[in-house]
């Protein structure tokens, strides 16, 4: 998606990425980025919270209109309300290391069979 933003901007369309994967978007280098520090999936606001969604989209448009240089990142002030998801997502540890290795083996066998 960041590559699409870069291309649109290069042909004269002002772009703004709203997202929650800060490192991925910033490494790609986009003109403007509103970072929403939520679990991946709801960058425009918590589900069924239209007030929050409007606040975030409104802020995004402000960033689109007021940024004066590329690679502008603004962090939205909204909070998810808990932090457990940060460590839990794609966790790797003693509790699942054997399972992940087995999953990888199964996936490679499937890919080899497809060839």
């Amino acid at each position: 998606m960041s590559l699409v933003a870069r291309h649109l901007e290069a042909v004269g369309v002002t772009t703004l990425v709203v997202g929650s994967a800060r490192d991925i978007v910033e490494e790609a280098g986009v003109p403007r980025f509103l970072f929403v520090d939520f679990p991946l999936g709801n960058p425009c606001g918590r589900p069924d919270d239209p007030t929050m969604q409007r606040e975030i989209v409104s802020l995004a448009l402000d960033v689109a209109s007021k940024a004066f240089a590329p690679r502008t990142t603004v962090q939205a002030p909204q909070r998810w309300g808990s932090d457990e998801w940060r460590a839990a997502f794609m966790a790797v540890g003693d509790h699942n290391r054997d399972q992940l290795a087995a999953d990888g083996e199964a996936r490679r066998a499937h890919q080899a069979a497809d060839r």
Partner: protein
Amino acid sequence: MGDTPPQADRQLEHRSFVSYIDKSREYYAAQGFTNPYRWAAFDDAPFTALSKPLADCNVAAITTSFLHHHDSAWGAPATGKVVYHHPVAEVPDAMFTDDLSWDKQATHTNDTESFLPLAALGALAADGVIGSVNGRFFGVPTEYSQRRTGLDAEQIAQWCIEDGVDIALLVPL
């Protein structure tokens, strides 16, 4: 002061925001995939300043979600998805996101406004904050191939220019 310090006074052992590049590399390494995915990285970035007031701007939304189910396997994004446009007046109640790598333990995507904010944009247009919501929104597959994404970007750029889009709001899940 209570026993729990306020959020502003919290102290951290490591940065608070999640590095998905690091996480995914470690996760797939634990699965035995030794050739890490190479993420796009550029030193420079293009910039087009807005040439008119926000209240006169036509705003288009761009999503990585899709209208219909596409088959996928083994955690990979679905194949067979192609870049598309769809009228904003006909927003489906649900969008297909199952194959995308969002946090399925922590949240859900049943409310499309949480990632495709067409009602929020409509309300801002009705209030005069923006000029209009573009008549169609655009969808783009998340491709492992940066070359394919480049071709999709050219198609979306063509549609944006045809429609007179001033601002593109891109929302990756």
